[in-house]
């Protein structure tokens, strides 16, 4: 049940919401604080009266904050809170596990992931999750000013738009009572004669009203600078659709420019913040810290599965610095593959990584069985949803994205050899690292893995022993563990399908040799552009060739760009409202004749991998599906930018790559002043 969707409550519902007896309701009606109205289904109490009373009743909120018995914020949440209380009272039921499962949409209690709900439920023992983000700080600062400019927040569902609206409401109004969104998703609040209008979702209001709001915003953000200021959360598609109206042209122009990445003009009274640009990876560590807080796990005391519980194990392992960093790296890699993970998706995923969707009851029940498989619920398995059903996988979006980076299925000799034989390695540090990693633990089911490894080493695989076979089946499990826990970061990172990920990350961080990488990228580009195994890397050859040549292709060199004119840079998307923004690897190609602006292309992880593989002799088919059209687009850009001036200079020249002695070499034909042909 949600407050915002009910106009009236029955007496019983109002009792539940306010946490009072029937007699108390009667008393409140007598005193005129509540009233009955005729509504569908009989006489009922208007919802706004109940809300008003609830807002006044500060004692209610405080009680809920302490996790005491219901009076909770509303009916639905009263149930949550009371259930939490009941479970908390029973040995072995940690209410925080329930709370986490509230994020996991695979469980029926997924309310925690929505701000409208989570802001009203009883907080867990270690406190409510409140990530202090730069964007929140930025907005608070902005709206604390005398006459702030209006803001449109766009972003995917789950990026925290509603959360930010609530936080700004609280900061602006100085009220701590939960915000009550009207039926039209709007709230107006005043401070020192300034009116702030908040719209939590432009999609929730009808078209006419939406256009009216935007017209008001257009006036407010115009040169007159009059009227209220706005904070509007909007789905971009909806926003663009509403802005199509002719009389919203000015606002459309401003919004569109900013959505396309331009900075607002100095005199703009409007700021568009696209939360899609925020790097969710920067919040991962903060969420893990909150999950791992000791208070959250006090509820586990006395649990019969205390020592063998994967959930508790996962929470504590995740909090180890190395593990947190590697998980953050995975999120960063997604960002570099242009996958935007929303804050809500991250919360759902991290909660799932910890609980695997299991409740305390299920863990306890499983734990009693001698052949349980709770070790398959360890965090690194949950990270890739290895035990999740297809239906569950669909709901935990991040798992789907991460499947492309699954380290479990990559068999690298040095890694598998370490897993199998690391114990008897020559080097002491390797042996001790192996001993550390594979010491009996919950995620290895005590000595279970070790025993199977021995079976394999004894040669039982040949004799068909199931233990040895099981060990082989557990290799992906071990590889995933190594990815997170191995000290050797370089090797761990190489477990992903991206061979050049370590180099890419180093370059982004400014630690790599950008010049050397640039030279390799030029070689890769030459091969990608010509389609030939060209070995030159001192010049970037922009060629054009007939793509359906029957014989060997003969690419004509249209533009030659000395490597000196090519730059590889690591740049940050500077956003004043975000934590640093994403860093990008940019390839900038300057006009060899210095007449035109440079061509700039982002080299994302896929493109980097593709070009580096080509430079190192890889074949064209790998990643071609993802990258060949990019290469053509780059070629188009380079040609349309630079070829005209180049043609002017090379009017009498025909330079191309031809075969000589089984090698591709540059050949040239020239016309002399008399129009005769030379080589």
């Amino acid at each position, binding site marked *: 049940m949600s407050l915002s969707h009910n106009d009236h409550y029955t007496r019983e519902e109002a009792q539940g919401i306010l946490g009072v007896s029937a007699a108390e309701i009667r008393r409140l009606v007598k005193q005129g604080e509540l009233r009955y109205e005729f509504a569908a289904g009989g006489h009922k109490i208007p919802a706004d009266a109940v809300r008003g009373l609830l807002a006044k009743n500060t004692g209610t909120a405080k009680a809920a904050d302490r996790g005491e018995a219901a009076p909770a914020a509303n009916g639905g949440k009263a149930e949550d809170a009371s259930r939490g209380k009941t479970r908390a009272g029973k040995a072995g039921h940690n209410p925080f596990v329930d709370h986490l499962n509230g994020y996991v949409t695979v469980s029926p209690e997924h309310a925690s992931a929505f701000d409208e709900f989570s802001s009203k439920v009883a907080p867990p023992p270690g406190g409510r999750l409140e990530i202090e983000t730069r964007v929140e700080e930025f907005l608070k600062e902005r709206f604390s000013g005398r006459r702030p400019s209006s803001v449109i927040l766009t972003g995917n569902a789950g990026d925290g738009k509603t959360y930010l609206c609530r936080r700004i409401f609280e900061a602006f109004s100085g009220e701590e009572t939960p915000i009550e969104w009207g039926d039209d998703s709007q709230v107006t609040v005043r401070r020192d004669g300034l009116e702030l209008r908040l719209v939590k979702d432009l999609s929730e209001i009808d078209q006419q009203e939406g256009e009216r709001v935007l017209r008001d915003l257009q006036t407010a953000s115009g040169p007159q600078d009059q009227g209220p200021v706005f904070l509007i959360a909007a*789905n*971009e598609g909806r926003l663009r659709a509403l802005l199509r109206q002719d009389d919203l042209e000015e606002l459309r122009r401003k919004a569109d420019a900013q959505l396309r990445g331009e900075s607002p003009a100095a005199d703009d009274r409007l700021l568009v913040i696209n939360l899609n640009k925020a790097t969710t990876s920067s919040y991962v560590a903060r969420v893990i810290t909150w999950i791992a807080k000791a208070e959250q796990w006090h509820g586990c005391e006395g649990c019969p599965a205390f020592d063998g519980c994967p959930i508790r194990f996962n929470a504590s392992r995740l909090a180890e610095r190395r593990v947190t960093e590697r998980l953050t790296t995975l999120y960063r890699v997604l960002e570099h593959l242009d996958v935007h993970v929303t804050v809500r998706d991250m919360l759902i995923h991290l909660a799932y990584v910890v609980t695997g969707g299991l409740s305390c009851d299920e863990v306890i029940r499983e734990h009693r069985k001698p052949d349980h498989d709770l070790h398959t619920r360890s965090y690194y398995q949950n990270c890739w949803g290895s035990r999740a059903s297809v239906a569950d996988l669909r709901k935990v979006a991040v798992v789907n994205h991460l499947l492309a980076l699954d380290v479990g299925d990559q068999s690298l000799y040095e890694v598998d050899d370490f897993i199998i034989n690391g114990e008897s390695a020559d080097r002491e540090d390797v042996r001790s690292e192996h001993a550390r990693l594979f010491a009996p633990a919950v995620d290895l089911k005590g000595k279970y893995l070790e025993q199977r490894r021995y079976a394999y080493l004894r040669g039982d695989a040949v004799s068909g022993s199931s233990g040895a076979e099981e060990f082989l089946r557990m290799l992906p499990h071990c590889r995933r563990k190594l990815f997170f826990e191995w000290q050797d970061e370089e090797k761990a990172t190489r477990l992903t399908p991206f061979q050049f990920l370590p180099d890419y990350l180093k370059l982004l961080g400014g630690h790599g040799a950008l010049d050397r990488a640039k030279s390799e990228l030029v070689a890769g580009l030459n091969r990608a552009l010509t389609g030939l195994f060209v070995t030159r890397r001192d010049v970037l050859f922009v060629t054009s060739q*007939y793509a*359906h040549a029957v014989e060997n292709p003969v690419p004509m060199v249209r533009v030659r760009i000395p490597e000196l004119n090519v730059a590889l840079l690591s740049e940050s998307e500077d956003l004043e409202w975000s934590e640093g923004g994403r860093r990008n690897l940019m390839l900038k190609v300057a006009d060899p004749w210095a007449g035109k602006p440079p061509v700039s292309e982002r080299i994302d992880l896929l493109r980097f991998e593709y070009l580096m593989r080509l430079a190192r002799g890889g074949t064209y088919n790998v990643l071609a599906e993802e990258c*060949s*059209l990019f290469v053509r687009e780059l070629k188009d850009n380079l*040609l349309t930018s630079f070829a005209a001036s180049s043609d002017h200079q090379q009017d009498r020249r025909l330079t191309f790559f031809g075969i000589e002695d089984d090698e591709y070499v540059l050949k040239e*034909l020239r016309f002399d002043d008399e129009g005769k042909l030379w*080589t």
Partner: protein
Amino acid sequence: MTDSPAHYGNLEEAEGYPLADRIFGHRLLNGQGWMEYLLEFLNVLVGFDYRLGQGVPDEDGARGYRRHARYGLRRFVFYSENEKTKDPRDDEALGLLREALERTAVSESGGEDPLSVARELLRSYSAVEASRSWYAKSLFPVHENLLFWEAARRKRAVMGHSNRAASLDAGMELGARNFFARGGEIYYLILSAGSRRRPGQRAFIEGQLKRLLTESNSSIGRLAGLIDGTWEGLRSEPNADARHADENGVQRLPDGTLGWIPDPDCALYRDMAQDVETLLRAELDPLESLDLLAHLTCFHLLIYIYYRTNLAAEENGEELHLGKLMLPVDCLEGQEATLRQASAARYKEHEQLQVRRARGYVRERVRALATGMAGDENFVKNLEDKAGKYFNVKGLGRATRDNHEKEVGRLKRKLDSGELNQTEYVERYADELEKLLLDRFRGRFVPIHRKLARSIGFVAPFQGPSQRYVLGDNLLKALVLASVPPGRPQEYAEFLNDLYRRYGIVVDQRAARASGLYDRRPVNAEYYDNNRIALQRKLRAASLLEEYSDATALVVNGYGDLRQEG
């Protein structure tokens, strides 16, 4: 029903036309290679001095187009030791040309032989090779100097000329039409008919194509011109045959005549002209523009075939809706079996539909001819004559015709004996005529759609089982640039809707439902969602799509705009 249905171009009813031409215009043949559609089209356009709307009675303008022979150039590029039928005339001609080039056009240099280097370079533009003679091969027209018409060598001996070079070319002719079957002419007619009422659009297309063929790659054009010019110089030396040479001595007489297409006001032609205009607006590498145009040309002809097969479109005022063509595209690389099968089945079905359409057409025509003959004493003979002439039965092989005549004779005896009445006879006669005509239709027409679709990456794999509709990189890019003008982004959903409305391409769930595909093959709706997402990803990787928040995605044509509006 008149003998001459509404048409655009030159329909000579006295000649009669094969069944496929009656339905699809004059004419499309399986022998034409996919690139030859563009080559023929550009040859015709250049032959009309870069003007559309020429050579048709409905519009003023030139009657015939010039065909470029360029024997010197093509012999230089293609004739070699590997020629399948070596000819002493060509050996001699090549020798003469090389000698003249060495003498007049090449400077002595210490490096590699310039002529070998030039040949290597020019050969890389070889657009049509197959195992053909040198004169039936073509070059990709990076410059107009590389354009020439398909040639053949007459079997009969030709009287020699007093000019040696000209006499070596004397056996050549440009009228073979083995490979330039008229598919490119049909495209010329389509664009001409489609741009008839839009002079601005027509001028833009003409201008852009001229720019592509004259202003870019001028150095290659110069090289080709040097070689061919040297040969023409030899041919025009004293005593050359003036009949075939104009003032420049390089062009044939403008004797190319266009065929015809049905339904001159068809909205499809307007849409296609619009596509070409939009594609040519993007400022691309000229070679890329021409390559994309080759893909778009074949794609348009494919849609044209499907459209005329089904006549399934719904015309709503100016707008045509081709949703019923229902072309389910598999963007998931065949990973989802159900989607793959739905697409593969539809690909096969389109073939059956063509056969069904041909059958229906023959029967409909025979019935119509018979209707006007009630009470005709020579009913049987007249029907046979009229139908035979209409479908140009004489153009078919003797053996097949003999068989047919035997069967018709048998039917006639049955009619005479009263075993069949006249109505029954007409139906049985239609059966026989169907059999006669369908053979050639199946062999020479039906495979065209396969060849076109596979060559442009609209069907994959190229060989092997499970062929289905896909969107290859080149085709996808061509379709985006033909649908989305530079600087005017379109929402992804709208783009998909356009693909569906304009070409019948089904990618997402909405189109699957609207086209009826969903009801036929109720596969999990999620597959279509995945299909949509996969295409979105592909467009994004190609920088043809930008994603914003909340699943807002815009299909973009980020190239410069060569047509400044307003």
